[in-house]
């Protein structure tokens, strides 16, 4: 198969199934780690429980292995395409956006993953936060200049 001509974004059925499973692991892990409970996140932010460090450390550690290891061990992803990268840039928007994100996170104890997972845990209270995030994303897009 010529990988040059294969669009790395093409969504085949096998890729869709893997995506669903990957998301399920993500949502199950968030729930297992109690990150879906705003109280637990807020207790971390108030220095009462350092569990969130283990969650982020464990997840980032495995991600590090994946992002650095797989492109070395395999020529391309197992279902074709290419190993994409998503470069982050350091500029005013990153600083201001992250600062605003942190304020909202500290106020609600909810971030995007757990807000989505709340639909599965049945935590209808958190739908307030999910609605806020949906509207926040809209407000950003409507006012963005790029």
């Amino acid at each position: 198969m010529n990988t040059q001509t294969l669009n790395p974004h093409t969504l085949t059925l096998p890729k869709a199934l893997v995506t669903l499973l990957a998301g399920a692991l993500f949502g199950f892990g968030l729930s297992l780690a109690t990150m879906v409970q705003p109280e637990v996140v807020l207790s971390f932010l108030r220095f009462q429980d350092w569990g969130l460090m283990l969650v982020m450390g464990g997840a980032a550690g495995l991600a590090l292995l994946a992002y650095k290891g797989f492109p070395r061990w395999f020529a391309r992803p197992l279902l074709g395409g290419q190993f994409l990268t998503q470069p982050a840039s350091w500029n005013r928007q990153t600083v201001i956006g992250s600062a605003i994100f942190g304020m909202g996170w500290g106020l609600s104890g909810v971030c995007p993953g757990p807000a989505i997972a709340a639909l599965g845990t049945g935590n209808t209270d958190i739908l307030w936060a999910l609605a806020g995030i949906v509207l926040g994303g809209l407000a950003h897009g409507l006012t963005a200049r790029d």
Partner: protein
Amino acid sequence: MTLIDTLFPLGWQHYLLGGLTIGAGVALLYLFNGWVGGMSTVFSSSWSFVLKRDFFRQDRFLNTRNWRLIYALGVVLGALVWRFALAGGEAQHTSVPAWQLLLGGFLVGYGARLGNGCTSGHGICGLGSLQLPSLGAVLTFMATAFMTANLLAITTKGLA
């Protein structure tokens, strides 16, 4: 009381195991599909289904909007499996007031999209690919989150 009990009054195993499970999901998406699975982009890319505005019609959203929705659906399913397999099927609740959830959520959505990433995008995927800008983003949102959560704890009583 040992140091472990002080740092992790509710135990530590479920945190590490949960974090590794999240990491396994991110790794799986990369191994099979080659995609970087941050969570907040779906809140921009999905608007392209209903809005014509140029911002939402960028390639980086149009190319990924389908799988990002499936990924989010997977998160819901994973949480649902946890609820019925490990949590007795009970719906969860939170005592955080609605106004904090709504206003906080709005800032989370706006800020994550302006800053191009959230706790998973910068915190897990960005740090996992050793990107310094992501480390800067994580330190920035941790700092403002610490400040906000503690200010709130001081100015209100009996919260969470």
